[in-house]
C-alpha cells in the first residue's frame, strides 16, 4: 500500500449568484484575508473594489512598450534613409548598419523627410504595444503554467460554466483549518471543500 503526501491549497466555497459572490468578497476583504481570490466565468463589474484589488499596472508596461516601438521605427528609418545621425555628430551609428543609398522620389535625405516616416512609426508603436499587452498581461497573471493546485478540486471545473467560487489559500496568515471553513460557511458558501493536491 502506498501512501500519498498531500499539500493543502486552501478552502474553496461555492456561491449561488454573482450578487452573493460580490457580498461574500466584501466580507472576506473586511476580515483581512490577503491570499484569496474569487473565481467566476466572466469578469464581474465592481469586483476589484469588493476585493480591494488595486488597479492593474499593465498600462505602464504598455506605455513603455509603445515608446520602444516608436523609437525602433524612428531609428530604423532614419539610419537607413537619412543623414540625420551624422548631422548631429552620431555618424558612427549609421556606420553600424551597412546601407546602399536609394535615392528615389526626390524626397529630402535629411530629417525633414520625417513625415514620410510617420506611418511606419505609428504601426510599430501599435505592434510593440500590443505585444507588451499580451506578454505583460501573461506575466502579471502568472500564466501560462502547466497546472495549479486548485485544479485538484472536484467542483472547480464549474468555474468556467456557471460556478462562482471563493478560494482562501492556506498560505494566508489568517488561515486556519476550522476558522476559515466556519467563516466561509457563515458567508453562505456551499460545498466548502478543503482543496489538497498530491505532491
Amino acid at each position, binding site marked *: 500500500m502506498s501512501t500519498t503526501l498531500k499539500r493543502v491549497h486552501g478552502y474553496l466555497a461555492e456561491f449561488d449568484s454573482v450578487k452573493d459572490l460580490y457580498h461574500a468578497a466584501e466580507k472576506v476583504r473586511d476580515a483581512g484575508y490577503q491570499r484569496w481570490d474569487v473565481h467566476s*466565468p466572466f469578469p464581474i463589474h465592481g469586483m476589484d473594489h469588493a476585493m480591494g484589488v488595486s488597479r492593474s499596472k499593465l498600462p505602464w508596461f504598455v506605455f513603455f512598450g509603445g515608446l520602444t516601438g516608436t523609437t525602433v521605427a524612428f531609428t530604423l528609418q532614419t539610419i537607413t534613409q537619412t543623414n540625420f545621425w551624422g548631422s548631429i555628430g552620431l555618424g558612427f551609428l549609421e556606420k553600424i548598419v551597412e546601407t546602399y543609398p536609394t535615392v528615389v522620389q526626390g524626397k529630402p535625405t535629411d530629417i525633414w523627410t520625417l513625415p514620410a516616416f510617420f506611418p511606419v512609426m505609428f504601426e510599430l508603436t501599435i*505592434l510593440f504595444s500590443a505585444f507588451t499587452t499580451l506578454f505583460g498581461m501573461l506575466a502579471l*497573471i502568472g500564466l501560462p503554467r502547466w497546472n495549479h493546485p486548485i485544479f485538484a478540486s472536484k467542483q472547480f471545473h464549474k468555474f*468556467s460554466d456557471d460556478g462562482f467560487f471563493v478560494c482562501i489559500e492556506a498560505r494566508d496568515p489568517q488561515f486556519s483549518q476550522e476558522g476559515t471553513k466556519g467563516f466561509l460557511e457563515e458567508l453562505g458558501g456551499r460545498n466548502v471543500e478543503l482543496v489538497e493536491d498530491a505532491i
Partner: protein
Amino acid sequence: MEATATTPSTDTTPSEPRILDREPLVLNNRSYAWISNRICGIVENKQPALWWFLFLPSVVLTGIMAFCFIYLISTGVGVWGQRTPVYWAWDITNFVFWIGIGHAGTLISAILFLTRQKWRTSVNRAAEAMTLFAVMCAGLFPAFHVGRVWMVWFLAPIPNANAIWQNFKSPLLWDVFAVSTYFTVSVVFWFIGLIPDLATLRDRCKPGLRKHLYGFFALGWRGGNRQWSHYETAYMLLAALSTPLVLSVHSVVSFDFATSVVPGWHTTIFPPYFVAGAIFGGFAMVLTLMIPCRKIYGLEDLITAKHIDNMAKIILLTGTIVGYAYCMEFFMAYYSANKFELQTFMLRVFWNRESAWYYYCMFGFNVLVPQVFWFRAMRHNLFAVMVVCMCVNAGMWYERYVIIVTTLERHLIPGSWRTFDASWVDNWTFIGTFGFFMMLFLLFLRFLPVIAIGEVKGVLPQSDPHHEPDREPGVQEEDLMDYPDRHVAKTATA
C-alpha cells in the same frame, strides 16, 4: 407612476416618462449553463450535413487556388490578365476587397467595445475570426503580385548582403507594415478573447488529446478575479490600440493610390472613403456568415433580431457615407477644373462603354440597394438582409475594380488605352480565395467557440452584482447606478 398621471395634482410639471425596458441581449432568460452548452455543443457534437456540404467544395476551391498560384509561379506573371496600361489589376482589386472585409472584426471588437455597445458580444468572436481569414486571403495577392514570390522577404527590413533597405518613404512599404501589424494585432486580440472560452472547452472535455490541446491554449486559465482584473485591462488596452489601427489600415491602403499622381486616384477624400467602405463591406460579410450560422446552430437567442437590426443600420450609415464619397469625388473632379481629372470621371461613368457598367453596379449595389434598410420591416426580414448583404459584397468588389482597373484602362496616354481582360487564372484564383476563406471559417466553427461565451454571460442581467430580480419594470440597473439622484426622485413619485 400611474397614480400621478391620473389624479390631478398641484404640481404642474409633467412627471418624468417611464424609461422603457431595453431589449434583452439574450432572449428567453437563458441561464449560464444553457449558454455554455449551446455554444460548446457546436464544437462537441457532430457537424450537420450542411457543414460537410460546404466544407468539401471549399477544400476543392482551395486546391484550385493553390494550383493557380503554382501555375503562376511556374509559368510567369503573364498568365494573369495584366497588360499595358493595367498593371494593377485583379490582384490589387482582390487585395483591397479582402482587406476591406477584414475591417468589421476589429471594428466590432475595438470600437464597439470602447463605445460600450454590449450587443457586440454575440458577434465579435466570429467577426474577428472572419477578419483574420480575410486578411490571410488579402495577403496572398500582393505577395504574388511582386512577381518573384520567393523574393517576398525583401519586403521585411532584414539586413542583407546587398545592403539594400526598403524605401520607407513609399506608401507601398507603409502598406506592408500596416497590414502585417493589423494581422498580428488582430491575432493577439482574438487570442486574448479566446483564453477564457478555451478554458470552458477544456473543463468540459473528457481527458484526452482534445483536453490537452484546449488546455494548452487556455494557458491554465483559472478565472480568478486577480486574473480578470489584468485581463480586462489588457482587453481594454488592445481595444484602444486597435481603434486607431483599424482606421489606419485602410487609410494606408488608400495612400497607395492617393499619394500617386494618377488622375482619379490623387484625392484627399480617399482615406475616410476607403475606411467607410471597408466597414460597410465588412459588416455585410459578417451578416452573410452569421445569419446562416445562427439558423443552422440554433443561436437565435444569442444573435437576436436586435443584433441584425443594429448591423443593418451600420450598413445603411456607411453605405450612405460611401455614396456621399462617390458623389463628392465626381464633384471635385468637376470643381478642380483639372481636365484630366474630369476626363477620368467622365470616362469612368459615361464615355467608357466597355467598363461603365462596373460603375453602375457599384453605385446601385452600394448606395441604392442598402437604402431599403431605412425600413424596420426590411431590417427584420432575414431574406431581405441577406439579399442586401450579397449585393454589398459584390458592390464592394466592383468599387475596387472601378477605382483600380477602369482608371488605369484610360490613363493619360490615349495611345495605350486598352480594356482589361481577366484571364482564367485571374478568375479561378479569386474564386479560389472564397473557398480558402470558407474553409478556414468552417474549421473555426468546428474547433473554436463561435460566440464569446464568457462575454455573453457577462451581459446577462443576473451578471450585475447589483441586480434585483424583482425590480420595478422599466428601470434599468445601469440608470440607477449612474444617476443615484434620479433613483431617489423615481421612488418618491412612485
